[in-house]
């Protein structure tokens, strides 16, 4: 007989308290969010997991207009990871508000809208539109996108441009703003300072790392877009390192993302100074992965008799 994979473990009350964290003024029942682009608009996962056991749901990145995305193939597997070049396909902010938000609003779990644009104005408009719509608890700004007005250089690799786009959003809305950084920089601390000065309330790190896989038989790239973003366990040590590096200058809470499959992985980020974490690629391996991570963290807290809050940054360098 096939058995439901959902963990039967219940998170009891005391344990539940131990899991609470606060990010950018948002009270989360636990530190586990779903990473943008890996959890659709939430509803797709309802048959497989308990959406109300999540700390927060971050939806697929939204743009002002719907986007078709890149030609296919868009994904390829890599050692302990995958490369994607979806091309930010999405329904657009209006369709999101009209068709997707209805379902999400009914959940007790905070919903975070991930946004991206091609110009600073795009970002501001998106933010305003989502704030107006209501039902969105916070915004996550994806700045790993090319700035079309600046010759296509990503907002996320230039501290000046990053500052501009984040300022535009933080000054326009009252919603808490999370900025998601690209790992593709020489010194992540420079970017952390820039977006912090621009008023971001929290920082997510990291987004995917650019990569290329070649089909050696066909002598062409595996992806139609040539380059894709690397995610999954392969990148975890890089992501954890960046959180740790970011902390040396960060005054706002950090959210760790990159290769989290298990509670153990999430705890690596938390001990290295992440206040919350995002589960991404793992949702594809197991649609109940994020909840399992939360349950696992609860188990760890119980065993170690510690609250998540007290674990943040708990990694001590060796004597």
């Amino acid at each position, binding site marked *: 007989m096939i058995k439901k*994979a959902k963990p039967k473990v219940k998170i009891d009350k005391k344990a539940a308290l131990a899991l609470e964290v606060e990010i950018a003024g948002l009270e989360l029942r636990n530190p586990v969010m779903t990473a943008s682009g890996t959890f659709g608009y939430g509803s797709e996962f309802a048959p497989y997991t308990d959406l109300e056991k999540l700390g927060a749901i971050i939806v697929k990145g939204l743009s002002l207009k719907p986007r*078709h*995305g890149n030609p*296919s193939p868009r994904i390829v597997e890599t050692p302990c990871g995958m490369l994607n070049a979806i091309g930010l*396909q999405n329904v657009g902010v209006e369709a999101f508000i009209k068709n997707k938000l209805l379902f999400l609003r009914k959940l007790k779990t905070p919903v975070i809208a991930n946004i991206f644009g091609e110009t600073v104005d795009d970002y501001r408009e998106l933010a305003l539109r989502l704030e107006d719509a209501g039902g969105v608890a916070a915004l996550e700004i994806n700045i790993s996108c090319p700035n079309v007005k600046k010759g296509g250089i990503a907002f996320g690799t230039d501290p000046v441009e990053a500052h501009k786009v984040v300022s535009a959003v933080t000054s326009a809305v009252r919603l808490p703003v999370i900025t998601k950084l690209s790992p593709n920089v020489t010194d992540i601390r420079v970017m952390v300072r820039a977006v912090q000065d621009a008023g971001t309330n929290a920082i997510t790190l990291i987004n995917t790392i650019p990569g290329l896989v070649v089909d050696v038989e066909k002598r062409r790239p595996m992806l139609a877009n040539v380059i894709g973003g690397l995610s999954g366990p392969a990148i975890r040590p890089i992501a954890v390192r960046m959180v740790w590096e970011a902390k040396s200058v960060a005054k706002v809470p950090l959210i760790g993302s990159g290769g989290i499959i298990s509670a153990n992985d999430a705890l690596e980020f938390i001990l290295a100074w992440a206040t919350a974490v995002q589960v991404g690629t793992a*949702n594809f391996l197991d649609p109940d992965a994020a909840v399992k991570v939360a349950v696992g963290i609860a188990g760890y807290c119980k065993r170690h008799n510690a609250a998540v809050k007290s674990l943040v940054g708990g990694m001590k360098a060796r004597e």
Partner: protein
Amino acid sequence: MQSSQAAILHNKKVVDDYFRMRLSWSGMEVRPGQFIMLRVSDGLDPLLRRPFGIYNVIGAKKTTGFSFKRPTGVEILYRVVGKGTAILSSKEPGERINVLGPLGNGWVEPEEARNVIMVAGGVGLAPMLPLAQRLKAGALLFGARHKADTKIVAGFSGLGCKIKIATDDGSRGFKGFVTGLLAKEIKPDSVIYACGPAPMLKAVAVIALASGARCFVSLERTMACGIGVCLGCAVKTGAHKAGYEADGFSMVCSDGPVFDSTDIDWDAL
């Protein structure tokens, strides 16, 4: 739809690199043409699930409709082509494996009157069996590399469909592509169900278009999630379809894997 641990009931070589694996199933309804995704390893390499069409449905309650109610097992027919399928072929009965499914929309039920033609190339045969089991009529045109491979078609005998075979080397049946058989069989009122390599499907679509027959194809794309969220398994579809899912791209996993062949942008495939 469920994500769960299934028991492997058997896992046997059929011929060459073809295997059949039977898995326990919770009773959830299955429609012909749907697929499942398996995690071939508990480890992280290979990382992603692998998709397989549902080839056989075990212990379903007899119904007159187009779906299988309360099955106790499902079977896949798979070909070993890489490391995931190699790992799969080494599994023993009694082991457990994580299954996500049933996924996708499956074949569109034909109107009674229609003359059904199933066209399968290689392991594209897999999703045809449940269809043949439900229809108990029509023709199956099957293309294989050589005579040995045609052994996988054995499961179709006694189901009431006429079987015609083409092999690349002519070692059994018609020598050449399966589309050669189709050209002879097709009628304007035919409804065609096709699964196999992309070039074969394209040729089938062209023949169908020329003859005016309706044609459904089951497509394959590399998949990560299987449930329409990663947007990885996109195929370019006709702009004439309304709504978001079809505004340029459709997802093979959630909008398909079965598509009306006229919806597909074959040049982009």
